[in-house]
């Protein structure tokens, strides 16, 4: 099945949807390329993203179209026509054959761009009120109707949009539903059709069109500094601080490079935020140059609404920028604090959570258990060890960990810890039962080193007990 054809093939009579055998019969030397819908969608999405430089409201339309709401965007470009031409030229340079139409309504623009007799890579601007005349000669398919409705209309002899103009609405509705009338009214601007949620333009976005494309980190940093100062001034006026910021760099080859930062507490200090962002400039691939930079606050909060919960009082303020910088370079999930958890199982009695994780802000809900001696370093996965121990319940006499033998000089135990029976059994453990029991011993070897060992399960004469090293005491 053919998914798409190029102009030469179309001239020879091939069309999408034709079976491969038919196509080969007409054109034996047909060159085939596997369809890649996912790749196409990705390329289209990338291009739509880049179109964001003209308007913040862009969206992908089907498999091969892009919507742009350019209402009020003319201050950014000389005229609507210039904008449309630039879009088409860019697309052509990237190897896409594109047509663009600008109209008062999304429906009219859609119909003209897809069905008007336009030369390749051209644009059509419908002046205000021109839509009715321009749409009249176009096929009814231009009304964005379902395929079967279009077929039905054609069977009734209603081939062109203009044929519908004189029709009475009442007989159409029972036959085709209200879709035909609605789409027609939308195309003609009789009823409103939003193509994107209409919000006021975000005041927390600043952008800068560059006279010359830039590509050096220094130039990007310079542009960033200016944008950051502008944005921070706005945030300050509103008494807000940014929690997340995104810098989008629009490249001349229609790619968008984005970097984002997060902060542990809202800030509108250009120095601090700029420094966080600057550390990531290296991730921007400038390609052949960047022609527009846009800085946006994705999340804002009233200032000083949050505390880090590090229990440090006024020191919090000084430490927050450090936490931000660490999280920025190492990743938020690598800047951690320890939280006590309600579990008998040693490895589950604590959890390391990101300092930036909002769900764990403030004081922990419970205290750390201090009733029993616990190691200061704990292996996430207990290490199996070879042990010489008198049976049934004695501490080991000797054990071998990582090929090094340790003679046990003193020992204390056992402390019996039962696995929580409602948990899934771990690998190699046959359910809870008696295998879910661990007998922990604190042992000291002849050099004074102290370890936390355990034997898994109850002693059974017929089996060799499994021993593990779990932690280290000072």
């Amino acid at each position, binding site marked *: 099945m053919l998914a798409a054809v190029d102009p030469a093939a179309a001239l020879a009579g091939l069309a999408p949807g034709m079976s491969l055998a038919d196509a080969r019969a007409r054109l034996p030397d047909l060159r085939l390329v596997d369809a890649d819908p996912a790749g196409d969608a990705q390329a289209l999405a990338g291009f739509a993203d880049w179109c964001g430089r003209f308007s913040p409201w862009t969206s992908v339309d089907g498999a091969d179209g892009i919507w742009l709401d350019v209402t009020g965007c003319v201050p950014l470009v000389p005229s609507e026509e210039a904008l449309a031409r630039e879009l088409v030229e860019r697309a052509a340079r990237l190897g896409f054959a594109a047509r663009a139409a600008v109209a008062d309504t999304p429906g009219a623009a859609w119909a003209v761009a897809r069905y008007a007799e336009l030369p390749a890579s051209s644009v059509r601007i419908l002046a205000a009120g021109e839509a009715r005349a321009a749409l009249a000669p176009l096929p009814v398919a231009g009304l964005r109707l379902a395929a079967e409705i279009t077929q039905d209309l054609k069977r009734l002899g209603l081939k062109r949009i203009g044929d519908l103009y004189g029709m009475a609405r009442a007989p159409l509705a029972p036959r085709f539903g209200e879709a035909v009338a609605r789409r027609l009214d939308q195309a003609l601007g009789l009823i409103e059709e939003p193509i994107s949620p209409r919000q006021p333009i975000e005041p927390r976005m600043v952008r800068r069109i560059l006279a010359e494309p830039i590509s050096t980190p220094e130039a990007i940093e310079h542009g960033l500094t200016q944008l950051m100062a502008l944005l921070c001034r706005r945030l300050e006026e509103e008494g807000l601080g940014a929690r997340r910021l995104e810098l989008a760099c629009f490249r001349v080859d229609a790619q968008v490079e984005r970097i984002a930062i997060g902060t542990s507490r809202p800030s509108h200090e250009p120095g601090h935020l700029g420094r966080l962002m600057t550390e990531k400039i290296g991730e921007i691939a400038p390609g052949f140059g960047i022609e527009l930079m846009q800085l946006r606050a994705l999340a804002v909060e009233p200032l000083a609404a949050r505390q880090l919960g590090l229990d440090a009082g006024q020191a919090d303020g000084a430490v927050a920028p450090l936490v931000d910088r660490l999280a920025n370079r190492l990743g938020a999930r690598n800047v951690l604090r320890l939280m006590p958890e309600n579990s008998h199982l040693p490895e589950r009695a604590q959890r390391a959570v990101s300092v930036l994780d909002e769900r764990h802000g403030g004081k922990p809900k419970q205290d750390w258990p201090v009733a029993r001696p616990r190691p200061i370093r704990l292996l996430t996965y207990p290490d199996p060890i070879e042990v010489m121990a008198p049976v049934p319940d004695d*501490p080991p006499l000797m054990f071998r960990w990582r090929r090094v033998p340790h003679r046990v*000089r003193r020992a204390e135990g056992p402390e019996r810890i039962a696995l929580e029976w409602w948990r899934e059994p771990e690998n190699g453990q046959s359910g809870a039962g008696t295998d879910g029991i661990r007998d922990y011993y604190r042992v000291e070897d002849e050099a004074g080193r102290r370890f936390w060992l355990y034997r898994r399960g109850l002693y059974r004469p017929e089996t060799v007990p499994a021993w593990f090293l779990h932690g280290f005491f000072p």
Partner: protein
Amino acid sequence: MATLVQLGGGKKDAALAALRATLRRLEGPGRVAAGVAPTGLGPIDDVLPEGGLARGALHEIVGEAADRAAASGFVLRLLAGLAAQGPVLWCLADPDLYGPGLQRLGLAPDRLILARTRRDADLLWAMEEGLKTPGLAAVLGEPHGLDLTASRRLQLAAESVGGLGLVLRQAEAAKAGATAAVTRWRVASAPSAVAVPGAPVPRDFGLMRGRWRVSLERCRGAAPAGEHGYGHWLVEEGDAAGIVAVAQELGDRSGASAPPVRPAGPVGQVEPIRRAVRDRRDTPIRQAG
């Protein structure tokens, strides 16, 4: 918090302080007014030129690889008193620190910020950032390697705002090359003592108080006490209340026959131990004073 085992002190302290301030000024502008973090262990503080771990400086603690908890446990004891001053940043590749154990040792895990780093470059960067940040009680790091340049960077960062930098290193890695750290300690576990000297100890009698063998191998600004460095001590852990006592100063590093230790007294009790040893260890500055 800790039992102060004070061995001397008196009127010459004021003169000594003045002399030390002069020395600090000669050493460089960064060190002035950085302050000091007393270890809380009297005999050890006495040897350190400023009466404790100098702030605005980098300190190196070396431990054996197989002895995973000894060096970090000793450092945690030192930090326990400091953490009231602010959060502690701990940079390491594999955060295996265990909250319940830390809490028992006196460092509230709530004060700890862990930075998990994949590479040494990231770890050293994180330490440097931490040392440049005022408000942290201390910055700890466990790099695999630390060369002179990297340690000098950390030292300069510490000097800039008076941060306290502590590098935990493994003995094998620490053999290669010198670092710019102001002090260098070697910490190892030591066998715990028997309750009654001379009596045989049943194997399953239970664990006694843990002990560390601590030696100060390098210390800028102090005179070596002997061919082995600046001092050796046997430090004994107290009970859960966080009492630590210097059980004994060791004349040499063999230390195989550890004599019995007196039980650590309650908090605040001053208990002199082996005054004679300390006198032999006096620094030239003290003699001048």
